[in-house]
């Protein structure tokens, strides 16, 4: 499977944020998007997710499900955690699993979704499953948001500043999750300032043009 973006341009509020971005990513590879603040890293991920219509160019998935849009092949984890404080940790996770997953998914992408309990254990918050999400710390909320990526299978992970609010140990655990996803044949596109210890990894640097 291959994710291709041709000549992408994006406008926000009548202003051209970036133009002429092209990228191509194979199954089992990772891409790090870097660049100074305000250069459009988040916008690029939102365009890839299909949340923002590109002003020019297009995004395509080769070898995926032809019925689905490229965005439907993606998990998106942005600055917001998409958690409801009034629901318990398990309720939050189970809702997203029910909402996002389709029954034939494992066969579809060759990636197996994880059991909810196992997913919470893997991100290290298995002990708080029955607590309301309101009681979680910022780092724990982040991990719960990441557990969502594990319980439904999507070949492409779009991660916007995934290490925000995470300490060094959690960062290492996150890298481990990404490595496992890439090794299983998934793709990771992360917008981050930190170097990612993944293999193979390529870098897309967005530069502010003068």
């Amino acid at each position, binding site marked *: 499977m291959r994710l291709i973006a041709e000549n992408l341009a994006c*406008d926000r*509020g*009548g*202003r*051209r*944020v*970036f*133009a*002429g*971005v*092209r*990228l*191509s990513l194979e199954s089992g*590879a990772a*891409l790090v998007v870097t*660049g100074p603040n*305000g*250069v*459009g890293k988040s916008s690029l991920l939102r365009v890839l997710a299909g949340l923002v219509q590109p*002003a020019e160019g297009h995004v395509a998935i080769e070898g995926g499900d032809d019925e689905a849009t490229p965005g439907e092949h993606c998990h998106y984890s942005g600055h917001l955690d998409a958690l409801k404080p009034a629901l318990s940790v398990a309720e939050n996770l189970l809702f997203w699993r029910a909402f996002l997953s389709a029954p034939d998914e494992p066969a579809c992408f060759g990636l197996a979704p994880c059991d909810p309990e196992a997913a919470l254990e893997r991100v290290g918050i298995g002990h708080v499953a029955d607590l309301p999400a309101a009681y979680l710390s910022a780092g724990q909320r982040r991990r719960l948001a990441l557990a969502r990526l594990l319980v439904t299978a999507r070949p492409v992970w779009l991660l916007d500043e995934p290490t925000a609010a995470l300490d060094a140990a959690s960062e290492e655990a996150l890298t481990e999750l990404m490595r496992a996803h890439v090794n299983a044949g998934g793709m990771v596109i992360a917008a981050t300032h930190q170097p990612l210890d993944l293999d*193979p*990894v*390529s*870098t*897309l*640097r*967005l*530069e*502010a*043009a*003068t």
Partner: protein
Amino acid sequence: MAIADLANPTRFMALSGRLLPWLGIACALAFAAGLYMTFFVAPDDYQQGATVKIMFLHVPAAWLAMMCYSVMAVSALGTLIWKHPLADVSARAAAPIGAAFTFLSLITGSLWGKPMWGTYWVWDARLTSVLVLFIMYLGLIALWRTVEDPIRAGKATAVLTLVGAINLPIIKFSVDWWNTLHQPASVVRLDGPAIHPTILWPLLVMALAFTLLFFTLHMMAMRNEVLRRRLRTLQLGAASARTATARPQAAE
């Protein structure tokens, strides 16, 4: 908001610039003829006296209030389906004009109502419908003014305009139904078959004059809106002339 966006509006600006004086002259002539006929051709009503002449303002204003909404509904379709850059400009320019005509229709209706019904306001089906239309116009304008990004604002109001277009007949019908329930006798009937030519012709000429006035104002407002958007684009460009271009480096 790039070059493709300005190509069409540029042609529009050139064309409308040439058309506008002629439209203005035609409008002035139609008003001169219409007002002359109103005051010197149309007879006074044997009961209402000279107050019946308010009708020659009231009825065209009410027609225009409806027509303006149709223009906005068509423009909304243009925004949502064909994504035409001028459609949004047209809808946005039409809204305040439509609100003004609706307001004029309410004011003249109320002034006409005073000698006829003895009070400035009656919850008559016609007046009530126009009042609802007025609130809808103001709601649309408010939505335009609260959403900051003009493109997003245009799309949001287009959705609301279309919902309004679907709902207006329902509202009209239900208000009529409500009215017959509460006050069975209809007060004014203008659409009777036996309207005399000495009233009909001034009315039609005035309606033509109002329509021309609408198109003149609409075109002027559209030109203003195009200029306003160009100015905004220029200001945004001046604020940040920053465009990123990027190439992926080879995987290591």
